[in-house]
């Protein structure tokens, strides 16, 4: 069975991939580069992908790896390993941000620990199932969920710092 054409893959995925790239890089040019590099790698390597249903995961994984590579190169981030199975997970109340715009939300996301940012982005972009997110981040589903729990808790703190509390959530019912 023939796989999808390059044009059809671009048409289906260029927007979600760009959104993911922009949520990570927060600079338009960098997001464009990451997205284009991903499609270039797809054009040259997609024949290695035997199952066309894995296209989405392949693209998001490739983009995420390209981002990590560029980030390590540009900012010399040391690779840190966290014990992500710690028992004391922060409790997550709904993350509320009605009063903020996309730029403010992304700015707040940028202040969340780097290890949690991609999981939080993929959570809100809603393009991928948890199983796919685990494949993209190359971690078990349990680790995805612990990163998300921590990342969402951090994001909530950042959003509270960014602006006045929203009407949604606990305040509404006080």
């Amino acid at each position, binding site marked *: 069975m023939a796989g999808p054409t*390059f*044009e059809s893959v*671009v*048409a289906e995925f*260029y*927007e979600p991939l*760009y*959104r993911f790239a*922009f*949520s990570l890089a927060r*600079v*338009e*040019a*960098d*997001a*464009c*580069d990451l*997205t*284009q*590099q991903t*499609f*270039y*790698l797809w*054009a*040259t390597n997609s024949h290695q992908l035997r199952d066309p249903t894995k296209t989405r995961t392949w693209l998001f994984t490739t983009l995420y790896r390209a981002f990590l590579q560029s980030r390590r*190169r*540009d900012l010399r981030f040391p690779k840190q390993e966290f014990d992500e199975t710690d028992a004391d*997970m922060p*409790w*997550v109340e*709904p*993350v*509320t*941000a*009605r009063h*903020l*715009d*996309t730029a403010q*939300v*992304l700015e707040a996301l940028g202040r969340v620990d780097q290890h949690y940012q991609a999981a939080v*982005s993929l*959570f*809100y*972009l*809603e393009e991928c*199932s*948890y199983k796919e997110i685990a494949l993209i981040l190359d971690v078990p589903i349990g680790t995805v*969920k612990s990163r*998300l*729990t921590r990342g*969402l808790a951090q994001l909530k703190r950042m959003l509270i710092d960014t602006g006045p509390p*929203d009407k*949604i*959530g*606990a305040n*509404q*019912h006080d």
Partner: protein
Amino acid sequence: MTNQEAKSILALYRPGSADRNDPAFAQALALVEAPRLPGAAPAHSDAELARWFQDHCAAYLSMHAKFLAIQPPLAFKDQILAEYKVQSLPYRPARSLMRVAAAALAAFALTSLISLLFWSHLRNDAFLAYLNRLARTALRPNYGMELETADLDAVNAFLLQRHAPAPSGLPPGLKSAPLVGCAVTTWQGKPVAMLCFQSGRPLGPGEKADLWLFVAQQETVSDAPGGAARHDAKVNKLITTAWSENGKTYVLATVGDKGELDKYF
């Protein structure tokens, strides 16, 4: 399952998504969506959980909408496809053969002419895509120079270390332009060196450079100019001039018109 346990599971639930069919959420969803018996007063904890879940869904959808509001630049899809055009040709032998066969039946001379024009058009598209990428890199507001120095030897050593091509020589006029640093970018996975200079014109707020020399191995940009003759092109706000020498392809770029670059040659 307690309400607290249900919350800890449902905090990661995305309403309206495939999570509804994810067994990991099934039990907690059943708890929050369980119909009450007719006439029975809801337990306080149930009402609190239902209210919490309602808040969670509203908050999630609000955040989801903000992420969906991220939109790629206009014509971005066309740009991606343009970059692909040339590299895609080798993967379409069947179509190429059909074209050649059909054209051979029609007229060999006409085929040659069409092919020449066709390839020429694609080559221009691909090189324009390369120039577009360089222009975006140069014009991005916060690109970071990986090395800030006025020392060309230090720049060359840095590029060598990063496996990026260093310039074999600089155009005569560029030797007197202040060098401020360099960075390494990529084109189709291959390193491209970006040397940053100052033209001497007033810089904008936060700007450190306004004149850039990009260096790539010639095979990295296979449709680049084949020789030392300069090829000028206006790309975005930049005027660019490109040439190839000693196996490397150079692009000198600055904001302005052609005259801004002529003085460096």
